[in-house]
């Protein structure tokens, strides 16, 4: 059985297997599974291998890994009463199986239930999958894969009226179309509104692609390539997103939080045909743009965890200054690769400092993954069957880092007393080859070489400086291509490759020509990050809704299909986006009680979700699951209380004390949390709800319940 055999099997088959393993398979399911197994030899083998894995896990917990091979030293019957820790009895197994187990005990095997669980840190990247609920599709209620359904159920059960969180479903059950009325003001009469005219204009301008390097020209190329794909696949793209949907998405994607209620009101009321372009320009100049991308890249470069010996603040300062100046991306990469000095004075050193442990193996793998979009971790030990990098290439790349030394520098205060220590990157003047061992135990040597170009390996050549040059050279280096892919993924919820950082001949991109074109244009623009974002955000595809119809429901990369970008895929908010959006919606940080530095508070809050590993790629896992309850519960309690309090300065305080009519208040509440106006039905049920809360307890209680309900909806925690 090869990975290819397995990837050809349908996800449903594996879901049936999972149900079988957990005793949850019903008779129709069993029949489906049977059909797979009887008709397809790969499925038959996968079935056997899967149950074998299931059974082995079960068996080995009770009898140890060596259960298959133990050697009895004594005749079994003599052993039957001698062992005090018979695990088999714990599980109610009797008779001769116990005898068999006892034999093994006597033979000196341990039966501790955790025997085969040998936790250590030797953790490889290909196993590092996470629970990020990226497959959640709020509008897929009718055609969701079972996986999606299960994911949906992972959302905390609403403690409040269901109609608030299940809105799309209840709408479709009343016979309205999928992109039916989202709110009273806008989509009820879309033809007359400027909003849609803007989108239409953006989408249809430039029917003939001009490859002139202008924003319009490049947007037109994107539009042409994607539309060609839709045509070939016979897919109708999703309708254009209305203003509220687009506004919320572009805010989250560009500046990392939802728009404030005042911003939304102003934008929705704006009749300017160019308002989307205008807003995008504003966002790119907003200080929150700098903050957002600093967060994104800090997480990529050194992770969220505090456990590594780095100066996070200095790295963030470096990133902030770079994004504020819109420094060319190739320059930033070169800085990270060639950085020298102490971690507080040169923030760029912190990237390598975080990964230079273990012979710079993590630094090698992570540099390739983050900056080149190449996963070469496995080639450290062996040639990879599906990867064009060979073991030799890994170590020639690693060779560039072999002159690098981590030094400790004492820092003293003005009186000359030693105060603290700082880490620093230094270059040792050594030359020569790098040694590595093949799987057959053969010692090999290799020299610094990147993409076929060797450099002088003497002691006086600064290898990292040379690497920085080589990596950022040419009309379309990997650095540019992988950056374009990553940013595209950031905005569309899916890159041209999946995973976004595993590019190469073994994993061809979905739109090779478009990726190639964008990478070249990105280089030609002088690696201008803001321009790249403009091209993407103004493309026709990014104006589309995340909702989908019959014609493009198969455009779902979650199922393994190649993305067509005929709709914008839904993503879960990151922990930082959720935290910041909560503050924007509730004003929890505006009360007199909320003191201290915002970034530091958020970082401390995040630490509860993060666990770092000292692995070959210094992975870390984040247990955060885009669930608002989790976020609120885990959020430090002062802030939680303030979020829904009516203390001076919060959103609720202003809402409750305003003299607006009730319907207007509800509209504002909905706009503040979900960036849209409520549907008539929603308005009605919410009114009842507010009244009940107010009668049962106090006036603010009804409003607090209503806000809590909105914040609990999956519509809030998703970027759609």
């Amino acid at each position, binding site marked *: *059985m*090869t990975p290819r055999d*397995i990837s050809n099997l349908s996800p449903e088959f*594996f879901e049936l297997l*999972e149900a*079988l393993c*957990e*005793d*949850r398979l019903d008779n129709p399911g*069993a029949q489906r599974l*049977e059909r797979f*197994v*009887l008709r397809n030899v790969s499925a038959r083998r996968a079935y*056997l*291998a899967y*149950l*074998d*894995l*299931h*059974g*082995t*896990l*079960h*068996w080995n*917990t*009770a009898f140890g*890994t060596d*259960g298959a091979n*133990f*050697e009895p030293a004594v*005749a079994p019957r003599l052993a039957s009463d001698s062992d005090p820790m018979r695990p088999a009895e*714990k*599980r*109610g197994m*009797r*008779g*001769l*199986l116990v005898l*068999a187990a006892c*034999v*093994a005990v006597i033979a000196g095997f341990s039966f501790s*239930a*955790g025997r085969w669980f*040998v*936790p250590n840190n*030797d*953790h*490889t990247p290909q*196993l590092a999958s996470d*629970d990020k609920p990226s497959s959640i599709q709020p509008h897929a209620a009718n055609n969701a894969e079972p*996986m999606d359904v*299960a*994911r949906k159920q*992972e959302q905390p059960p609403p403690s409040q009226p269901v109609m608030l969180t299940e809105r799309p479903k209840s709408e479709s059950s009343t016979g309205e179309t999928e992109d039916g009325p989202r709110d009273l003001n806008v989509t009820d009469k879309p033809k007359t509104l400027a909003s849609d005219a803007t989108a239409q204009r953006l989408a249809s301008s430039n029917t003939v692609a001009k490859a002139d390097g202008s924003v319009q020209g490049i947007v037109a190329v994107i539009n042409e390539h994607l539309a060609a794909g839709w045509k070939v696949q016979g897919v109708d793209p999703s309708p254009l997103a209305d203003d509220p949907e687009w506004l919320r998405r572009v805010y989250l994607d560009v500046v990392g939080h939802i728009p404030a209620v005042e911003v939304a009101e102003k934008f929705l009321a704006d009749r300017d045909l160019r308002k989307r372009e205008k807003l995008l320009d504003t966002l790119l100049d907003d200080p929150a743009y700098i903050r957002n991308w600093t967060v994104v890249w800090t997480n990529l470069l050194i992770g969220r965890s505090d456990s590594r010996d780095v100066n996070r603040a200095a790295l963030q300062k470096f990133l902030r200054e770079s994004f504020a100046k819109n420094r060319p991306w190739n320059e930033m990469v070169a800085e990270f690769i060639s950085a020298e000095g102490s971690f507080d004075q040169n923030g760029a050193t912190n990237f390598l400092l975080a990964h230079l442990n273990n012979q710079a193996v993590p630094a090698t793998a992570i540099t390739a993954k983050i900056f080149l979009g190449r996963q070469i971790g496995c080639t450290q030990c062996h*040639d990879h*069957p599906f990867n064009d990098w060979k073991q030799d290439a890994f170590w020639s790349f690693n060779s560039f880092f072999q002159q690098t030394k981590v030094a400790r520098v004492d820092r003293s205060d003005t009186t000359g007393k030693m105060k603290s220590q700082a880490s620093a990157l230094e270059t040792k003047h050594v030359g020569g080859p790098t040694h590595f061992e093949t799987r057959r135990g053969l010692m090999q040597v290799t020299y610094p070489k990147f993409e076929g170009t060797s450099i002088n390996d003497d002691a006086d050549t600064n290898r990292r400086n040379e690497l920085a040059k080589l990596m950022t050279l040419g009309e379309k280096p990997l650095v540019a291509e992988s950056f374009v892919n990553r940013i595209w993924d950031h905005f569309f919820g899916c890159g041209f490759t999946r995973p976004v950082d595993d590019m190469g001949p073994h994993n061809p991109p979905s739109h090779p020509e478009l990726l190639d074109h964008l990478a070249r244009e990105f280089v030609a623009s002088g690696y201008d990050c803001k321009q790249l974002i403009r091209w993407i955000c103004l493309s026709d595809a990014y104006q589309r809704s995340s909702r989908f119809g019959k014609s493009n429901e198969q455009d779902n990369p979650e199922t393994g299909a190649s993305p067509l970008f005929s709709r914008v895929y839904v993503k879960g908010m990151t922990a930082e986006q959720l935290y910041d959006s909560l503050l924007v919606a509730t004003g929890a940080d505006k009360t007199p009680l909320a003191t201290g530095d915002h970034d530091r508070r958020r970082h401390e809050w995040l630490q509860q979700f993060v666990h770092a*590993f000292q692995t070959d790629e210094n*992975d870390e*896992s984040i247990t955060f*699951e885009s669930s608002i309850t989790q976020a609120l519960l885990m959020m430090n309690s002062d802030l939680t209380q303030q979020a829904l309090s009516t203390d001076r300065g919060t959103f609720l305080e202003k809402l409750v004390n305003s003299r607006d009519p009730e319907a207007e208040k509800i509209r504002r509440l909905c706009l503040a949390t979900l960036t849209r106006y409520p549907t008539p039905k929603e308005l009605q049920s919410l009114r009842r709800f507010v009244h009940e809360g107010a009668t049962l307890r106090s006036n603010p209680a009804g409003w607090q319940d209503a806000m809590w309900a909105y914040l609990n909806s999956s519509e809030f925690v998703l970027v759609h």
Partner: protein
Amino acid sequence: MSEPHLSESADEIGSLDQVPNAEFVQLFTKSQRRLFLFILAQVSSLTDAEEILQDTNVIIWSKCHQFQLGTSFFAWAGKIATYEILKYREKKRAGRLQFSDEFISTVAAEAIELNDELEQRREALSECLRRLKADDLELIQARYAPGENGLKVAEQLGRPANSVYQSIGRIRKVLFDCVTRRLTAAARTT
């Protein structure tokens, strides 16, 4: 030996006092896991498979004198297991019966065919487990602790059952893919 289903087969058991020789014991113990997995492939339930293995063992033990050293122990024991599976399915026929006879015989034949690969996979599994993330390891450990299942684990963790099923399923798939990859990689490099 007071279990009713054991005494049912008492007539075919013969003498339980017969003490098998050391080589037989060794073959017996060595084959236990493989037998268990062979049975599991056909009945799919861990508890049922354990019970059938137990019944099978009683028969194997009682017939130890019939086994000829030098022949395949597994082929011999596998026949006994197949017979026990048949009996179990007969008993279950009244109740819920998941898979057809055709399915069972196809799977049993394939299991024997595939044995070498499955054996290699079992070896590779321990390495893949070692490479799991600590959190994942903990969860899968909890799931396979004696007497546990996904539902009970969910209750203990206070997480929704579906989310735990989801996570356990993901980890199993990760392990499955890891094992497959390791085998493929090993096949290419050697």
